[in-house]
Structure formats: structure tokens, C-alpha cells
């Protein structure tokens, strides 16, 4: 079965830009306009965040955008409603990213079914462990043609990276350094040993680097070590600037791509 993520990596091997935003932020109905505007500005892949009350792996920026999105009334059913006609408007690869609990309450199987109906290509649930995924859910995800994307970190042993690579498809999400999202301490692209180590493993899947990528400099450095990079918190901050969504998105992407 075709999957837009797989097609993307086949067609464009280098310099991919993936952008994360929290659905329902800044305003409840911004989800589709943000997706379309990102595509218009040449972004390659979009991660739509499903807000959660207790996002353990996230720093203050995404915590706050999640709080606001929840207060605005974002829920999984609401998000699916917003996205129901998205494939009539764009073919950009779409990944849903969130935490396990809301998906569990919605029902994992029902969630996968709905995601496939809409034309979602991949799912990231950072707190769903690999072992549980393989035991309970892998079949469901694959049956619905959803790439389940896993994170690896500088501390992940080689053996486990191989294991993750063997159970996943789409891409491997390389967390740049040991941190929650949104850190701009400069650690993001400093860990070149780790990037090289993973590159030399010649995994089945391509990889993207994320966490702490926030400007042209960190983006282009990350691109030297992987197929591309993922930006989240920095983009969410840009959305909070004065100006229209269009203006903020355009100027942000231009700054990153330079």
C-alpha cells in the first residue's frame, strides 16, 4: 500500500522540513488553515499535535499551547471532524502526535480506523512503549496503513535502535539531545558522535532529527546528519507573534529555509 511518508522519502532524499503544531492553537479552528499554509510554504511533512493535559516529554512552549488548545475545546473527535475533508485540499504527509491516554480512551482500533479514513499517514505516541506496541497494537496500525514512528535518543543502545528500526516504518525520530521539547541551549546539534553513530548503522528507515531545532543554523546542521529535521516549539512561538497566520508562517519558514 502506498503511504505518503514513504513516497516523500523516495522522492526527496535530502533537506526535509517537518513542522509540528498543536491542534487548536492559537484558535480552535486554525488546524486546517495552518496545514494549508505550511504546505504552501514548502514544508514537507506536518505533525499535528493532539493536546494532552500532562505532556511529560514536552517543555513549557508545547505545554502552554496544549493548555490553550484544550481550553479552546480541542478533542480527538473535534480534530477528526476538522480534518475530514483534508485530502480534498492537500496531499502533504500528515502525522498525528500525542500521548497514549486520550487515544486509549477513544479506542486505539477506532482511532486507527478513523485516521486511515481521513488519510493520515503516521502516528507518534511517545509514551506507548515498543514492547506494548508490538504485543498489542502493531497489527492494527499496519492494517490501517499507518506508520508508527518511534523516538531514539543519544542514550538508546544500538541493539534497541535496531529493534525499533525493525518494528517501525516511515522514519526514525532522532531526539537530538537528552531533553524535553523546546530546549534552545544549543545542545540540539552538538551531539555529532551520536548522529554519526546512527548514520553508520544504515537503518532500514530514514531518520529525521528533532527537539531543539529552532533556526536556520540548527536546521541546516541537522540536515547534514539526517534526511531532515523537525521543528515544533520554535514554530509555536512564531504563531504567537503579532500578525496573521499567513504572515507568521511565511516569515518563519523563510527564516528556517533561508
Amino acid at each position, binding site marked *: 500500500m502506498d503511504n505518503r511518508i514513504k513516497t516523500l522519502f523516495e522522492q526527496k532524499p535530502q533537506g526535509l522540513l517537518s513542522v509540528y503544531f498543536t491542534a487548536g492553537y492559537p484558535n480552535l479552528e486554525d488546524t486546517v488553515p495552518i496545514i494549508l499554509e505550511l504546505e504552501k510554504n514548502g514544508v514537507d511533512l506536518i505533525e499535528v499535535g493532539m493536546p*494532552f*493535559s*500532562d505532556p*511529560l*516529554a514536552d*517543555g513549557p512552549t508545547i*505545554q502552554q499551547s496544549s*493548555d490553550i488548545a*484544550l481550553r479552546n475545546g480541542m*478533542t*480527538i*473527535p473535534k480534530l477528526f471532524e476538522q480534518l475530514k475533508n483534508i485530502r480534498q485540499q492537500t496531499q502533504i504527509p500528515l502525522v498525528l502526535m500525542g*500521548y*497514549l*491516554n*486520550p*487515544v*486509549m*480512551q*477513544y479506542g486505539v482500533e477506532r482511532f486507527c480506523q478513523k485516521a486511515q479514513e481521513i488519510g493520515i499517514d503516521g502516528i507518534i505516541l*511517545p*509514551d*506507548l*512503549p515498543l514492547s*506494548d506496541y508490538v504485543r498489542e497494537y502493531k497489527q492494527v496500525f499496519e492494517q490501517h496503513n499507518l506508520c508508527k514512528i*518511534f*523516538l*531514539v*535518543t543519544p*542514550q*538508546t*543502545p544500538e541493539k*534497541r535502535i535496531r529493534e525499533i528500526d525493525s518494528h517501525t516504518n516511515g522514519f526514525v525520530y532522532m*531526539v537530538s539531545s*537528552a*531533553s*524535553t521539547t523546546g*530546549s534552545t541551549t544549543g545542545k540540539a546539534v552538538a551531539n555529532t558522535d551520536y548522529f554519526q553513530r546512527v548514520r553508520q548503522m544504515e537503518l532500514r528507515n530514514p531518520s529525521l532529527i528533532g527537539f531543539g531545532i529552532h533556526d536556520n543554523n540548527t536546521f541546516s546542521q541537522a540536515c547534514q546528519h539526517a534526511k531532515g529535521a523537525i521543528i515544533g516549539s520554535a514554530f509555536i512561538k512564531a504563531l504567537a507573534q503579532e500578525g496573521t497566520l499567513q504572515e507568521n508562517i511565511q516569515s518563519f519558514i523563510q527564516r528556517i529555509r533561508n
Partner: protein
Amino acid sequence: MKYSVDENGFYGKFGGAYIPEMLHPNVEELRENYLKIMQSPDFQEELQALLKDYVGRPTPLYFAKRLSEKYNTQIYLKREDLNHTGAHKINNTVGQVLMAQRLGKKRIIAETGAGQHGVATATVCALMNLECIVYMGEVDILRQAPNVARMKMLGATVVPATSGSRTLKDATNEAIRDWINNPEDTYYIIGSVVGPHPYPDMVARFQAIISEEMKWQLKEKTGSENPNYVVACVGGGSNAAGAFYHYLDTPEVKLVAVEAAGMGVESGESAATSVLGKEGVIHGSRTLLMQTEDGQVTEPYSISAGLDYPGVGPMHAHLFESKRAIFENITDEEALQAVLELTRLEGIIPALESAHALAALSRIGAKPDDVVVVNLSGRGDKDLSTYLDRFQLNG
């Protein structure tokens, strides 16, 4: 029915390790080593010596004569309030700090609600000369000020958690985020039987000393190791886990877990997870969790900072579902009445948390000859300003 953890870290369907990949190496390191370390003779020797001479164990099992008369049954109090630092929490922190040392960690982090776990952690860090950072909700910093002062005195850094309801859940989030950001040198001393496997099992084992002592103390005093009831309050559930541990497979001993009802279970201001919760995932564990229909965690409420948590440990979720334990819940008002009652009948000022267990005495239907052990998890020093206010003793 099996009540202890299985080899995959589950109690029935509850438990597991639902953690982001960033935490995997640390949690895995602990999982691989904790039993080996805990069972090694040098670890046990050091632990037992500290429990005896530093913590002050064994804690007394006290026959509460006047309280027994009042409830017309035989009530014993397991005096965890007499431990160094004033609660059961130190049984666990002494054990975990030794664990951290064995694993070569230099920096200790912890979350705290009532501040008792924070104080107990700061205490063992002072003892072992380790850096200590304690996350505490802003609301709890205000309502448990004496414990904040003690932590500072002990040299710990107290970091306010300012997100969500600014209580125990949020402090736990911040501690976990700290651990993600410091994966190499940091050890997370969790304060209850919560979190990813192996924490619930490890903490339960460190607290199991409570029921281990209860058994021989009861044998001495009553001729039988087994009481009819063991009653304990449940926040995350560590003091209850310790008090129940050696009775789990003795069905004739009734286990009573007491949750905080706050303003009342139906009021929207409550922390009675077994009534209000559904299966979900919080802080790395699949357990009962108070949440909205959409799976967002609900902000709990209790006057007692140590019980103000929207989940329970996975072991207790399993004890609830399997009906091995009886779950009761007690309102703020009932707990406060129990504080005054114990203070005036026995001359013991209990912690607000422990008072929830005491208040359940009127619910359990114990007969005159029944032996009831209430785990008095902590003393009330930290709650005195609340007590003076509520009992109008201020002036």
C-alpha cells in the same frame, strides 16, 4: 489470584512502563538491577542498620485503649508517625538512596505533595552528601510550609511546579521532565507506589517492613499474626502497600484502603480515584485515573496534600478490581473530626492523610473482639496551621 507484580511489571492488567524513550535507559537499568541489589547481603546490612538506628525502627504497635472503647473494637495503631522525619516515607527514601548509590548516581530528584517525601529525601541526601532537588506544587508549598522550611534547612533545592492544579500530579510531571533532561547522573526517588515498573514494586518492597513488623508485634500482643482488618489511607498508596504487603495472600485479613473524598465524591472536588477513575495511563503506569471522557487528566482536590492525586498505584487498582481490598472514602470534614478525636482521646496529633484512615473506623463494621490495625502513616506537625484555623484555636 496473584497480587504481586508479574515479570512484565503488571498487576493484573495494571502497571507496565508507559514512558517516553528518553527515560527507557534509566528505567531499564533500574529494572534489571533492583532485585539483585536489594537482595544482596551488603545492601541489606546497610539498610537494616539505618532503619534501626537512624529511622528508629521498629515503630511501636500501640493499643489505643480509649479509641477502642469509643468504637467498641480492638484498635492498634502502627506508629509510622514516630519514624525520623515523621512519616512512613523515609522507609522508602533510605532504601532508594542506597539504590542510587549502588547505581553510581550523584544527583537526586523527587516530587512531593505533603512535603513528607520531600523532607525524607532531603534528609537521606544530607546524610549521604548528595545533591537534592525536590519538585513541589505551588499550592502545596503554601499549605505545607513547615516541610518546605525543613527541606531548605536540609540543603535541598525546592522547585515550585506551576502548571495544572499546582499539586502532586504537576510536581511529578516536573520531576519526570527533569529526569528526561538529566539522563546520565540523576536518580529519581519516587515517593509512592506509582510510576513505571519497577518503581511500584520497589517502593512496596521498601515499605513492606511495616507489615513485617506488624506480624510479630501482633503475635506478641494478641497471640495471632493476623488482625481482622488493616486500614490505611491511599494517595499513591505506599503506606497502604507496606501495611498490606504481608497480608495480601491471607484472605481472612480484610484490607481497607481509604481515599480522600475532598468536598464529597459527587462534588467535583474530590480525589477518590477508585470511585471517579477509569483505566488510563498516568506517570508511566496503566492504572485507575480520574479523567474526562476525552482522556484528559482531571484536577483532583483534597484538603490533604498527600492524598490530592488523580490516580492510585497499579497494585491498588488491581486490589480494587479484584475486590481484595475494600475501598472507602472520607471527606475533608470527616478527616478533620478524626484528627481532633485522636488528639483528644490518645494524645496523638495525626497527619491529615492518616486521619482519613482513622475516620474510616466508623465505616468498617468491626465487632467487639475484632483486631483492627490502623496504619498511622504520619504526624500532624506539618498540618498545625490548618488545624488551628479549622478548630478555631488561633488566639
